[in-house]
């Protein structure tokens, strides 16, 4: 129980910091002076204190969506084993349900964007759904490969099995790792697919979705975006670098798992910033190709597992 509460709390606190860390590294790699690591917290603080303006034509759905999205992401962070594999919430939702939770959040943010009826919102929603429907099968395939290796679809027991056995090289996990990286970039609106800092009207995907939000609604969505990135990074860390998690509900093991998690996240942040720096944003019509590659890698991972048994 402690581990579950601590895990959600850590996710809520660390997620904006991860965002700030990545932004800082991006700035450093581009020879700019970096914003403070705490900048995302300040943005959230500012937005929470601002008045929230809602369009006249908005339906209640528009007001509910930020809370739903935030709730979905917080739930996802609770399911993914970040600190411990001994999670009371883990049996409630396996890896497939986790993908469903992400899909639920996506559907609601797309509906809310279309609700206002501006052309940008609709365009963003359509693009977001296109990326989503291409990325989801790839993500599922990645999770299936891990499930086949460990004979379980529950993330907690996958991680438990992977971490507690003797070190084995899985070529199939190499493929699914590559696929997962592509999915992560696409799902979190990172550079080759979407530029998270752009407000250039024709190229934006994610920003177009949340264009109409302001004040506390926007703050919740920004926080949810950070949580999503956090959740994805933690899924990656859990599947491909499963070491250092607490196996039992012991406080001292949790204390040890926290620094390990921070180190993993810091490394992942630097890698993400580097990928975003060396790549250029691609045209939207290249995105299906990008995600087809991810799907292909994930399918090959399955095949390699079947052939080599590893």
């Amino acid at each position, binding site marked *: 129980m402690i581990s579950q509460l601590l895990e959600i709390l850590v996710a809520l606190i660390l997620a904006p910091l991860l965002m700030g860390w990545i932004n800082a590294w991006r700035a450093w790699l581009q020879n700019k002076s970096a914003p403070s690591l705490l900048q995302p917290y300040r943005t959230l603080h500012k937005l929470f204190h601002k008045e929230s303006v809602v369009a006249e034509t908005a339906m209640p759905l528009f007001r509910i969506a930020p809370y739903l999205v935030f709730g979905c992401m917080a739930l996802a962070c609770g399911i993914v084993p970040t600190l411990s594999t001994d999670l009371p919430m883990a049996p409630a939702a396996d890896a497939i349900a986790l993908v469903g939770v992400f899909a639920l959040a996506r559907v609601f943010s797309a509906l809310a964007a279309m609700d206002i009826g501006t052309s940008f919102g609709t365009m963003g929603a359509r693009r977001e759904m296109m990326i989503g429907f291409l990325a989801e099968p790839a993500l599922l395939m990645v999770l299936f490969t891990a499930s086949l290796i460990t004979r379980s679809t529950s993330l907690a027991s996958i991680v438990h099995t992977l971490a507690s056995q003797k*070190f*084995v*090289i899985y*070529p*199939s996990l*190499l*493929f699914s790792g*590559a696929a997962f990286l592509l999915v992560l970039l696409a799902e979190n609106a990172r550079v080759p697919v979407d530029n998270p800092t752009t407000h250039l009207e024709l190229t934006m995907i994610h920003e177009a979705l949340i264009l109409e939000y302001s004040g506390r609604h926007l703050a919740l969505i920004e926080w949810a975006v950070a949580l999503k990135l956090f959740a994805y990074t933690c899924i990656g860390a859990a599947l491909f670098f499963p070491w250092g998690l607490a196996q039992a509900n012991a406080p001292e093991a949790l204390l040890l798992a926290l620094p390990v998690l921070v180190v993993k996240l810091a490394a992942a942040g630097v890698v993400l910033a580097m990928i975003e720096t060396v790549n250029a944003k691609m045209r939207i019509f290249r995105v*299906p*190709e990008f995600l*087809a*590659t991810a799907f*292909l*890698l994930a*399918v*090959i991972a399955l*095949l*390699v597992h*079947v*052939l*080599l*048994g*590893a």
Partner: protein
Amino acid sequence: MHLLLSQSINLFAAMLLIVVFAMISQRRILRVIHLFTVQGATLVASTIVVGYLTGQHHLYYSAAVTLIVKVILIPVLLHRVIDRLNVRWDVETLINIPTTMLIGIVLVVFAFNLALPIAKLSLSIARGTLGIALACFLLSFMMMISRAKAVPQVIGFLSMENSLFFAAAAATNGMPMIVELGIAFDVLAGILILGVFMFQIREQFDSLDIRHLEKLKED
């Protein structure tokens, strides 16, 4: 240690497969050459590991030959060719990469099924990877078919040879030394001749697009 090394053969095999897929989807000629170099290096590493595990020292020599010919000599030659032809930064217009990729998956499944009964007969340490070697072979073949420009086609040919080499190492712990030496020099000579061909094609048609070769005479 021994166990980890024998698992690393599978890892190298998987990397070969990734590299071939990357080659198929890569538009830039320069990147394709880089990928070919990586493929050669992976091949060298896996040959050394197989040689170490089976105690067959002639595999070290064949790894050395591979290193010299496929990782150093041929990439240098290719770089010089694309410099001379001035196609270093060329981008090939590939149509329909997702479809090619899907066909690629079908090829991989086919190769895996084909290799299963053969691999059961083999006693070699890396027999599981025979399916991957066959898949790489078929994919390189597809790369030769799907590309229109001469340089990527040549690289497809070379990558096919690499896969055959890997298949030999996987199925029978390597071919006799004399055969390997012969193949290595054949490939080298092939590259030189193909290089001359590329210049000739360029002279004739002002382009490396081999579709021009299908026309018999000027209209």
